[in-house]
C-alpha cells in the first residue's frame, strides 16, 4: 500500500487530540510522528522528511505562523495542512500565503476528513 510509506508529522499541543489523530492515521497505515510545539516541529523537520505536516496554530514556545515562516521553501516538499480553531478569513489568507496547502477550521472538520485529506496529499 503506497500510503503506508507516507510520513505524517502532527504538530499539536493538545495531547488528547494528537493521540486521537495518531491512532486514526496509524490505523490507516501512515507513519506518524508527534511534535507538541513549533520548535519541536522545526527540529524534526531539520532531520527527517515528512510528506504531510498537520499544523496547529496556537501553541506554546512557537506558534504555527512562526513555523510556516521558518519552514519557507520546505513547504514545497511537504504538504502543510493547518488545523485551527481560529476561523477568521485573515488567518486563512495568512497561512496560505506562507505556504500552507490547506486551512481547516477544526470545528468544521471531522477527524475522518483530515485522514481523507492526508490520504489524498
Amino acid at each position, binding site marked *: 500500500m503506497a500510503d503506508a510509506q507516507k510520513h505524517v508529522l502532527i504538530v499539536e*499541543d*493538545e*495531547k*488528547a*487530540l494528537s*493521540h*486521537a489523530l495518531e*491512532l*486514526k492515521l496509524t490505523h490507516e497505515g501512515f507513519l506518524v510522528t508527534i511534535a507538541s510545539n513549533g520548535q519541536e516541529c522545526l527540529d524534526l523537520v531539520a532531520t527527517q522528511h515528512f510528506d504531510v505536516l498537520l499544523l496547529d496554530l*496556537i501553541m*506554546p514556545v512557537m506558534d504555527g505562523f512562526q513555523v510556516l515562516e521558518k519552514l519557507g521553501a520546505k513547504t514545497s516538499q511537504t504538504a502543510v495542512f493547518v488545523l485551527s*480553531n*481560529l*476561523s*477568521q478569513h485573515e488567518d486563512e489568507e495568512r497561512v496560505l500565503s506562507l505556504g500552507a496547502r490547506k486551512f481547516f*477550521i*477544526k*470545528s*468544521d472538520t*471531522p*477527524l475522518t476528513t483530515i485522514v481523507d485529506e492526508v490520504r489524498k496529499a
Partner: protein
Amino acid sequence: MNPTIMVVEDEELLLQAITKKLKLSEMDVVSCASGQQAVDYLENLDTLPDAIWLDYYLKDMNGLSFMELVKQNPKWRDIPVLVVSNSASPEKVHNMLALGAKKYMLKAEYRLDEIIGIIREFIADAQNSTGAGPTTSLPAQMSDPQTPPQAAAPPASDDPADDSTNQPT
C-alpha cells in the same frame, strides 16, 4: 498525569483564554469550538476527558442537545459536565441539572481561577468516589430546579477572558 478537560466554547477568544489558563494550571485541554466537534472528538479520543466545560449557547447546538448526546452514551455519561453560560433562567438550570450536569455557572459571576478550582474538586470527587453518579454531589442550591444559580462571588468582570489579574502574559 495531568487531568484532561474538554472545553466546548464557540467564542474563539474566550476559548483561547480558557485553554491557556487551564494549561497554565497544569491541565491538558481538548478545545472545541462547536458541539459537533466535541462529539467527534469524544468518539475518537483514546482516553476520555476527566471533565467537560460546556458553554450553553453554541453555534451548532445548545447545551441541552449536547448534554443529551453525552448522557445517552454509556461511555460518556459519567464525565462530569460543568455548564458555564452568559444566562441562567430557572428552566435552563433545571433542565441541565436534570440531565446530569454537575453545576451551572454564570460567566459573569466567577473568575477563571474559581471555575478551575471547581473543576479540580469535581475531578477529585470522581476519583475518590467509586460508583457515585455525576448528579449525586450537586450543591444544594443548584439541585433545586426552581432556584436560579447562586451569585457566589462578586463579578470580577463581565467576561472571564477580560480578567487581567488572571490572564497569562
